[in-house]
Structure formats: structure tokens, C-alpha cells
């Protein structure tokens, strides 16, 4: 009574199998909507200021997005499982400092990056263990670890700071260098992004993250190792926050006890704008990355257009609301289409 072999099943007879994969299409439409908003915004800015898309301008855009893209990628994995990690900002800060301290003493940059990632993994594991073993609400636990890590960070760092002068020149140059307009850091982020997306789509354990976010009880009954998966998602998120910390150090050449403070809200915004739903089970890392790109670009677009910085915050907020509203309306349309379609053949 195994599944009947495909050759015996006249698949073409089943309605809908010929149509494009519906679930995928919905995701793509959401991502396209964000991409469209992004492109329109860039086009308008370019029209208003021809310097905007100069080589340096593009490089800046990409560099600005890099760190947020990385953290948002990790965060989406956690959000997909119907959890959240608010401690990413603190993790980023403390791992950046750890890498900085190591480099300050003449360490090897590669080891420093690894150190930051390991640090991130450590805190990710802590969060993951608390959430999955303790089975307690992620929001509270990670708000708690946000404070704890931030506190430990500021006790450890004190008033010290790592500046570009303390770091090996090669490391700092790497942070702003690249192949013409494409910075090294952006390439790293892109690689991580593509690999994560591929994993989520093509591997069983990746799909299981969606499943357990969609319906945790059903996931348990389906024999999915829920705790293990949640733990993995948090660890991955922590690792990326750590990596982002190392890249932050390279990019800004400057870390103190306030680094990464309040970053969690930016990350959450990016993820939400990117269409990753907080009730879990849906969304994609590409969406989150686009959300991150959109958010950081707004911060570049407004100064480039000469909008007084007094207006930036308000415009930022309104754009954020617009983005999620547009996304929602698209989703509603799709749901309606789905219903009609369903009714036709029902």
C-alpha cells in the first residue's frame, strides 16, 4: 500500500495539477510587490539625484543593507517557526566586541569572524534551549535575554571601545572594499541568503520549520522533532547575528557598549515588511531580505533627495505601514481568487 507509482497515476486528470504551483505563486506575488515598491523608490530617487546610482552610491546601498539582510534572514527562520528572537541586537553587539577585542590583540581576522559566529551560536543555543525545553513564550524569554546579554555586554565592555585604529588594516579595508560596485560583505550576505532559501525549499528539515510554525500540535503528531528544529532555528539565527556582528566591525570599524542597541525592532520591521507572518508558517527569506533592503534604502533615499532629517522618521513609519498594507491587500486578493477557484470546481 505504498504510494502508487507516478506512472500509474494519470496526473493530468487531476484538476489544478497543470496550473503553476499555487502556494509558490502567492509567495512570489508578495515578494514582487516589495520589489516593485523598492524599484519605484530607487527610480524616483535617481530621477531627483543622478549621483544616487553612481558606483559609490550603489555600493553604499548594498553595504547598508548587508548587515540587516543577514540578521533578518536568521530572524525569519525563527519567525517561520512561530517564535521570535528579540535578542539579536544584543548578540550582534557583544559578538562584534568579542571579535574586536581579539583583533585588537593582533588576532587573525578569519578566526575573529569565527569567534563572533561561535559567540552568536552560544546565545542562539541559550535562547533555543529556553524556548524549546522550557516551552515558554519566545517573546518574553528573548526580551529577557535581550536585557541579559545587553547587561553583560555593557559590564564587560564598560567604557571601552574598539576603533578602526585598533583593527588590522586589511580587515577594515575588507569592510568597505569589493569588486567595483559590489562589496565583499554584500557577496557574503547574498551567499548566506541563497543557501538558506535553497535549504528551506529543498530539504525536509527546512519544510518542517514551516510545518511546525503552521500548526505546532500537528507537527508533534506528525513526528517532527519540534524541539530540535526550534533549537536549530535559534542557533542559526544567533550564528547569523554573530556573523553580522563581525561584519559590523569590519564595516564601521567601531564598537562600544551601545552597538546593536534597539536593532531588534529594525530587524522585526524588515521581516514583517518582507511578508514573513508573525503567526508562523509562511513567508520566505527572500522576502525578508527584500524588506531589509527596502528599509535601509529608505534611510539612504531620503538624505539623497535632500529631505530634511526631521522628516525621515515620520516618512519611515508611514512607508512601513504602507508596505504591510499593500502586502495585506495583495494577500486578500489572492485568497479571494483561491476561494472563487475552489468554488468553481467544488
Amino acid at each position, binding site marked *: 500500500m505504498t504510494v502508487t507509482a507516478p506512472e500509474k497515476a494519470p496526473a493530468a486528470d487531476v484538476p489544478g495539477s497543470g496550473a503553476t504551483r499555487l502556494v509558490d505563486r502567492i509567495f512570489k506575488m508578495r515578494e514582487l510587490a516589495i520589489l516593485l515598491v523598492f524599484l519605484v523608490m530607487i527610480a524616483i530617487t535617481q530621477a531627483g539625484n543622478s549621483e544616487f546610482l553612481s558606483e559609490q552610491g550603489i555600493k553604499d546601498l548594498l553595504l547598508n543593507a548587508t548587515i540587516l539582510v543577514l540578521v533578518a534572514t536568521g530572524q525569519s527562520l525563527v519567525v517561520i517557526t512561530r517564535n521570535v528572537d528579540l535578542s539579536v541586537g544584543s548578540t550582534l553587539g557583544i559578538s562584534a566586541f568579542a571579535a574586536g577585542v581579539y583583533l585588537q590583540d593582533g588576532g587573525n581576522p578569519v578566526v575573529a569572524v569565527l569567534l563572533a559566529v561561535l559567540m552568536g551560536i552560544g546565545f542562539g543555543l541559550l535562547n533555543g534551549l529556553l524556548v524549546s525545553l522550557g516551552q515558554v513564550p519566545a517573546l518574553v524569554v528573548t526580551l529577557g535575554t535581550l536585557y541579559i546579554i545587553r547587561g553583560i555586554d*555593557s559590564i564587560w565592555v*564598560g*567604557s571601552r571601545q574598539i576603533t578602526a585604529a585598533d583593527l588590522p588594516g586589511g580587515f577594515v*579595508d575588507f569592510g568597505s572594499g569589493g569588486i567595483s560596485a559590489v562589496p565583499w560583505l554584500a557577496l557574503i550576505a547574498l551567499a548566506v541568503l541563497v543557501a538558506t532559501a535553497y535549504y528551506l525549499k529543498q530539504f525536509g528539515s527546512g519544510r518542517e520549520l514551516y510545518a511546525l510554525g503552521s500548526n505546532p500540535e500537528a507537527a508533534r503528531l506528525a513526528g517532527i522533532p519540534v524541539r530540535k528544529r526550534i533549537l536549530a532555528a535559534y542557533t542559526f539565527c544567533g550564528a547569523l547575528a554573530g556573523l553580522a556582528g563581525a561584519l559590523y566591525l569590519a564595516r564601521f570599524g*567601531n564598537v562600544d*557598549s*551601545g552597538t546593536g542597541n534597539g536593532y531588534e525592532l529594525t530587524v522585526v520591521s524588515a521581516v514583517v515588511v518582507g511578508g514573513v507572518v508573525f503567526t508562523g508558517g509562511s513567508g520566505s527569506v527572500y522576502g525578508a531580505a527584500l524588506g531589509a533592503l527596502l528599509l535601509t534604502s529608505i534611510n539612504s533615499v531620503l*538624505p539623497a533627495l535632500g529631505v530634511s532629517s*526631521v522628516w525621515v522618521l515620520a516618512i519611515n513609519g508611514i512607508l512601513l505601514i504602507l508596505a504591510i498594507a499593500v502586502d495585506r491587500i495583495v494577500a486578500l486578493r489572492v485568497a479571494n481568487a483561491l476561494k472563487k477557484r475552489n468554488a468553481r470546481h467544488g
Partner: protein
Amino acid sequence: ATACGGTTKEDVKDEGAKAATAGKADPNAETKKGLTVGFLPKQVNNPYFTVADKGGEKALKELGSSYKEVGTSSGTDTAGQVSYVNTLTQQQVDAIAVSAQDPGALCTALKQAMKNDIKVVTYDSDTNPECRNAFISQASADDIGRTQVQQMAEQIGNKGEIAILSAAQTATNQNAWIEIMKDELKDPKYKDVKLVKVAYGDDDAQKSFQQTQGLLQEHPNLKGIISPTTVGIKAAAQYLSGSKYKGKVKLTGLGTPNDMRKYVKNGTVEAFELWDPAKLGELAARTAVALSSGQITGKEGETFKAGDMGEYTIGKNGVIDLGKPTVFTADNVDQFDF
């Protein structure tokens, strides 16, 4: 009063702005020992304030009094600062040296402290004059504003567009300096220098970074940036040194030698300035002790001796000026460590 009998701004104008003073000064009074002075910086863990407070600690040790530091870990947690003022009041310290996050918000608490016989000295950032006994000004606003414009003009050959990268829009001292810069720019010798924009980076590295990018994109002909804040100048320098603008767009402002050493050496920055924060803290401490000992009360014209630093005279509204800032260049930057 207005027609409808409510309270308007006009009705409350009467209260004069004067430094709080009490009793009479006795310049020859004994310097008291065993006092406790609580330092309350804008933000703990901020390197600048740590250096300043260390200066205060050193002075207090010399004077035989004790030092303590409390404060919030965020630079904008005004409510937190208020509750620290309350705490220090509760603990009955002899004097408080505070760098105020907000000119008005601390007033009630500070007045409460003064009522409990605690002397209040502000340093770096002042409150309303009536809420403290004296203010230690890092340098006169005039000095800071004008010298920065002069330096910038010199570097760009008195010609071209310049911009200012400030901290938060609400920062009182920043705004005072910017006003004076604008005033200085009215001088005919700067007729070819044009201030095109004031941007605000909120003393946040990343924001200052992006504001710098925006300035350069919006004004392709920009010749120079003045950033009168340590966070801003550092972020701007880091961006410039990694971009094609390095060396072409001039940068000056207020920065610490340790932060800026690298950029001075690699040619991103020619010169910048700052007072010595340790001296600022020291003067705050010595003023606090002098107040507690009754040598001064905060009235204009009173003088007191501040150890090795020499004699200081209290100016208008209880303001004490630290002195002129130091200009740092590649030649002298290695002689400083803060």
C-alpha cells in the same frame, strides 16, 4: 491673563533665569575634607564621560573627598537620569556633578536636591540656570563655533560648499555652536563658503554614517563637513576613508585623539579639536568642593582656586569656562591619550 481666563505662556514669564545661590561666600573658608561628590554623566560607559569623570575622581582624591559615579546606560533616558538624581539625594551626598540630558527635565529633582543642602554643578551639558549652582562649560560656545569654521575655511581655501553633521536635533550645546558657526560665516571673508545643510546623525554611528552618504550624494560639490560631535566625526571619517571622497572632502570638528588618530594619519582628516575632558571633570569636582566648603556660592564674579588648574572666576549665570580647546593635527595627536 487671557480673555477666557486660562493660563498661557505670557502668564508665566515672570520667573527670572538666575543661578541658584544661597548665603554668602567666604573665599577663605577651609576646604572641607571627607565630602562625597556624586557624578552623574549623560551616559555611563561613554568613553568621553568616563575620561571626564576619572578627572573628577583624581581631583577628589587629592582633596581628600570621595567620589562615586551613577547613571543610565542610555544617553536619552531622561526619566532614568531623574531617578538617579533622586537616588543621590536620598543617599545624602554633599554635591552632585551632573551632565544633563535635558535642560528642564532634571529641574524638579535638582531643586529638591538643593533644598536638601546638596550643591549642584553641571558640566558639559547645562540645565536651566536656576536648577544648579554652577555650570562648567567645556569651552565658550563662541570659541568652539568660530574656530571650527576658521579651520574648515582654511582647509578648503575659503571657497566651496560645506555642511554640518550634528548629533540629535535637541542637543542644546550643538545648537548653540551651530548658531555661532552661522554667525561666523557672515564674515565677508567667507563670502565664497556656503553652508548647504545641517544634518543630524543622532550620535548614532550608523545613522551618522548614512547621513554622511546622503550629504555627499545630495551635494556632489561638497568640499567639507564640520561635525561638532565625537560620534559624528568618527562615523564621517570612517565613511570617507573607505570611499572615493577620502582626502577630497575635508572633515573637521570635535573628536577625541584616540578615535581620530587613524584618520589623521591616513589623510582623511587634517585637523580637529577638543578640550581635555579630564580637565572638565576635574574642574567640576573642584567647583563642587568649593561650593560645599562655602568658598563660593555661584554668584557672578566670585573667584576660587582650582588646584594646579589655577584660578577661575564665575561668569554670568554661574557659568565657569574651562578655557580654549586644543587643536589636534598629525604633529601632536600622538601626545594625547584619551
